[in-house]
């Protein structure tokens, strides 16, 4: 396992819902696909998530929310990324999300939304197809 480009992903659980089995399973799937996954635990505020994303220089943030507060939490993450000139970081969401909310979330800047029952392979494949490790000097400052 030599070095080389590695996708760095933050798997984050914003909000108050109480278990992270899903997030851990997802983290493992990403790891098994060769990605480096930062996992920072339950109950994250959007501020914490964005700070971690910046310090860890991630390419992708996967937000998982089961509490129903996604319409506030997900767009808030996007907003904070913009404030920090980090809108080049791709953000995806998952969890218990009514289908009607999906277009609104996408409009807010969430690139893709994954619903329960979807396959892990789809999520991994999506990341492979849509996210690239940042290139030297390529990212907007």
């Amino acid at each position, binding site marked *: 396992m030599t070095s080389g480009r590695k996708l760095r992903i933050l798997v984050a659980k914003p909000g108050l819902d109480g278990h992270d089995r899903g997030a851990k399973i997802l983290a493992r799937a990403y790891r*098994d696909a060769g990605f480096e996954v930062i996992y920072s635990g339950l109950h994250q505020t959007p501020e914490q998530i964005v700070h971690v994303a910046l310090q860890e220089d991630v390419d992708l943030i996967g937000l998982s929310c089961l509490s129903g507060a996604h319409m506030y939490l997900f767009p808030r993450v996007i907003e904070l990324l913009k404030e920090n000139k980090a809108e080049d970081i791709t953000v995806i969401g998952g969890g218990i999300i009514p289908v009607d909310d999906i277009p609104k979330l996408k409009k807010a800047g969430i690139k893709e939304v994954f619903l329960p029952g979807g396959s892990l392979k789809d999520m991994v494949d999506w990341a492979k197809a849509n996210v690239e490790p940042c290139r030297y000097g390529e990212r907007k400052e």
Partner: protein
Amino acid sequence: MGLAKRVLQGDVRATARLLREVEEELPGAIDELKVLYPHTGKAHVVGITGAPGSGKSTLIDVLIDAYRKENKTVGVIAIDPSSPFSGGAILGDRIRMQRHATDEGVFIRSLATRGWHGGLSKAAANVIHIMDAMGRDVILVETVGVGQAEVDIMNFAHTSLVALVPGTGDWVQTLKAGILEIADIFVINKADKQGVNEVEVELQAMLQMGAPSAAAWKPRILLTEAINNKGIDDLMEVIRQHRESLIASGRYEAYLRERSRLELVEVLKSSLMDRVSRMATEDDYVEKLIDDLASRRVDPYSAASDVLKRIVQEGKF
């Protein structure tokens, strides 16, 4: 403005980006490191090693808190293993330190070993330099918790902590693995659990057998309950004493020289290796040499000497 300049101003995004470029050995990173090097050597580097689950991350969490109360800025480097199968990694040490996530005075970076042995990652030395140049007063390094031979850290840390846990028997393994020699401070964590005395007595006995009594610093043994924030004041005090002893005894200077020597050797090794592998792809020179070796037309010593001569003649790496 170049990344290095922004790192010197403490810019988080620029620092995070440069860390990435250094870790992935991207072109350009070396020029930035050259700019930063004169600004390094100020931070106190504390290494924390110990078996998986011994409480390294939790200890770092409470140490961050203690240093922040002294108004010191903190850098944390938390290393977890890469999967040998996929090359991916789950970096989860931050979970225990999450309350510091939004504190501007705390910069935490997770690294995967990426096949590097010795409990650190190949980039660790430069990651320390960058956090140092960024102006962090203290840099805490958590090694991989594999419980054996994570001894690289002694080359990087001014003060090495080894975390042990009572009752599990893990600590015996840890000590067997040669960790006894590297510890400046033994932290018996989870002191709320059974069997603290046993570890302490055993450890003391082993130390008395090993250490020459004239040594300027005798390893100390401390009890902590990281999760209850107990014993941390004492730990902070002993870390401070260790640093003072390093400086007073002249070992700090000696350490810096040794560190510099190792770094020069490492950089030489890797630039030579880079140069040699480029030779191999540029003109098949090395491949031909290997053919000659395989058919015994030349011996490896003469071949290596040929390669070096050629590099010197070209006058560049």
